């Protein structure tokens, strides 16, 4: 009889890294379905190219760098999917390809691969695309979803951000507004959020605090009343960013208090950029800036360790 010996613990929570990544992919499915339904074949094309490019880039890099190939951990698929959902359906295929390759090779692998990147790969790639090909990325590239009005309206539409009064709350919730593939349907995103929280893939903290923070700071800084603040909160990529990008494990803080500070500050930055910046949208930069601040928050938050408090202070 040959027995295996190893140190304790001898059992593990069945939730593995690959499983967590799969959960996020599953949570994205409602968003993907609505996006493809709303924008049609071009959206499917963009998503397929960005996912394929991310996976191929990861595989090639790990082969070339003689690293163990970990494509099956679903993290590259997820990066590709999130980047694709961050693009307008009119994005040319080569842009999706370049974006994913940049996300995987430059942002993720050059900084040490899974777990060592300090920026969210998909977001950093989106920022690069935004700076490199603004025509294809900015609001001018957004089209109205085809299922919203009869007939394809290929003419660029006003974004809900630059003209807040033009769409009703219901249209915003269902996704009958122009935007990137993933951000339009708030209901699909919320379904994904519930799935992620129920499978304890993420905690509710970052999404809820971030969205709440955008709402509160819009009220305080922009003004205009409760309803217009709500519309601003449901506009653009706030919800998608809060659920799927700000919650990226690698680039968000770990302890609950740190997560709350991080998410609240993202909300503040978004509102500041929207109000005072040149971009109508600030989600990308809000999250990226706080990604950079994450190690600082994690490091400087005081840690409460058992056995260091005065025991009198903790009489139960």
């Amino acid at each position, binding site marked *: *009889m040959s*027995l295996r010996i190893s140190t*304790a613990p*001898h059992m*593990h929570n069945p939730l*593995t890294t690959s499983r967590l990544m799969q959960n996020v992919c599953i949570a994205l499915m409602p968003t993907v379905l609505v996006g493809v339904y709303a924008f049609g074949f071009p959206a499917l094309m963009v998503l397929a190219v960005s996912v394929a490019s991310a996976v191929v880039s990861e595989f090639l890099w790990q082969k070339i760098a003689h690293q163990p190939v970990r494509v099956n951990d679903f993290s590259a698929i997820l990066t590709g999917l999130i980047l694709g959902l961050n693009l307008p359906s009119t994005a040319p295929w080569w842009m999706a390809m370049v974006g994913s390759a940049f996300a995987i090779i430059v942002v993720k692998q050059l900084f040490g691969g899974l777990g060592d990147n300090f920026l969210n790969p998909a977001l950093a790639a989106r920022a690069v695309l935004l700076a490199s090909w603004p025509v294809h990325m900015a609001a001018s590239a957004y089209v109205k979803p085809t299922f919203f009005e009869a007939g394809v309206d290929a003419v660029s539409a006003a974004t809900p951000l630059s003209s807040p009064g033009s769409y009703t709350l219901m249209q915003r919730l269902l996704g009958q507004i122009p935007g990137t593939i993933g951000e339009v349907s708030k209901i699909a995103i919320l379904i994904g959020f519930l799935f992620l929280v129920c499978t304890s893939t993420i905690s509710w903290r970052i999404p809820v605090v971030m969205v709440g923070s955008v709402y509160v700071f819009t009220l305080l800084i922009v003004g205009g009343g409760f309803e217009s603040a709500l519309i601003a909160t449901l506009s653009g990529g706030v919800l998608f960013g809060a659920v799927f990008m700000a919650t990226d494990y690698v680039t968000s803080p770990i302890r609950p208090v740190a997560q709350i500070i991080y998410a609240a500050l993202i909300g503040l930055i978004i509102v500041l950029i929207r109000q005072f910046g040149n971009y109508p949208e600030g989600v990308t930069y809000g999250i990226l800036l706080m990604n950079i601040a994450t190690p600082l928050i994690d490091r400087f938050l005081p840690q409460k360790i058992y056995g260091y408090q005065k025991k009198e202070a903790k009489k*139960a």
Partner: protein
Amino acid sequence: MLTKTFKRGVHPLHNMHEGKSATRDLPVREYVSDTVVISMAMNIGAPAKPCVKKGDHVDIGQVIGEAQGFMSVPVHASVSGEVVAVDSIPSLGAGNVQAVTIKNDFADTWVELHPLGNVEQVDPKAVIPAIQAAGITGMGGASFPTHVKLTFREGATCDTIVVNGAECETHLTADYRLMLEHSTRIVDGLRAVMRALNVPKGIIGIEDNKPEAIVAMEQACQGRAGVSVQPLKTKYPQGGEKQLIEAITGRQVPSGGLPIAAHVVVLNVGTCAAIADAVIDGKPLIQRICTVTGCVRKPSNLMVRIGTITEDIIGECGGYSETPGKIVFGGMMTGIAIPNDQMPVFKSSNGIVVLNEKQAKSKDESPCIHCGRCVAACPIGLNPYQIKVAADKSDFAAAEKLHVMDCILCGSCAYQCPSRRWLTPSFKFCKDHITAEAKAKAAASKPQPPSGDAARNAATSKDVDSMGKQSAGHASKQKGGATK
């Protein structure tokens, strides 16, 4: 039910009755084998020295290994019969330990016993010597000599004895059955200690997944002075010494200190029952309840003699139901995997869990994704992912700065880690290394051999945890042996 608990922690198998359903309703049955192999190193500290030779006849309860100093306990024959070998067997840690093999003649003759009688009338001064003579060590897994635990330094005060009936490890039901079937014995043992130390309060902590045990113990406490039951939330490591103290008294043991610094002494329910046996009947510790579960045909709670061979126990439980991949002594979270089924049962062996080949397979580490599950799990409040980075670089100074020495090696972080990182093993390695370095430094500056008290401090500062640390316990056993 109003339950208390500690911060963070994990809850393995929470939807499967913590894996205990196979054995929880099975009454304890006795099993005595033909041959026992009794290890001389069953306690933290110095191993005992064999005082019988091949061919000797021994009776049950006869001393076969003499304690070597204060930080050591005597070992007794658990069966009557002939000593067939005094040799060395592989220890659970590294190296070998001495062991006495006895062939059972099933005559069941006992040595002459010296009972002290009713615990409420016994001379308080006689209790601790009786415990020492009975060879009692912590029966929850840490194997710390109980008489050492009950002997305080000058000036230390104790106002509460906490009894650990949490049994927070998955799969194990030994303590549960003991609480159901021998509840009065546990209270007797607790009362004996309370009287010996003149402590007014004794609290028995039990997780709320064992409501029957809570009722049984509450009944047993009725009419007894100063003892009560405290239901606890079912959560791992609820039975960890520090967590139990925090949950029950709201106090924290200062870093690097012993529970007595928080004016508390923690005893396992099994230890209390053994104390009652020693005081009331004068019987030494020669048997214990052991839960045998996992891939065996007939999972059981067995009352086994110390030194019973694993193979015999598995045979008594109907044999393996699948090809075994791993056999764990103790619980799944802190138990130690044994190299083969010839390993005998120790005083601390509260369970034998057999895993099949699939369950025994371990996965390779994948990169840390900073998900924070380890931080959310750590009952001490450490940042395991950061300590692991330091440990991987063998940067012991950095690990110490991140408070690795406060780690109780409960395994919660490693259990939760989705990347299957070897967190707990790394931390144990760090702790052992740092302790060994400190010891070497101390030895260089002060070349005298350590006194009993110093040996006790050395061993305890290393192993403040008393929950199921067989692995840690056995490592320190060798360390303790080396100092002698």
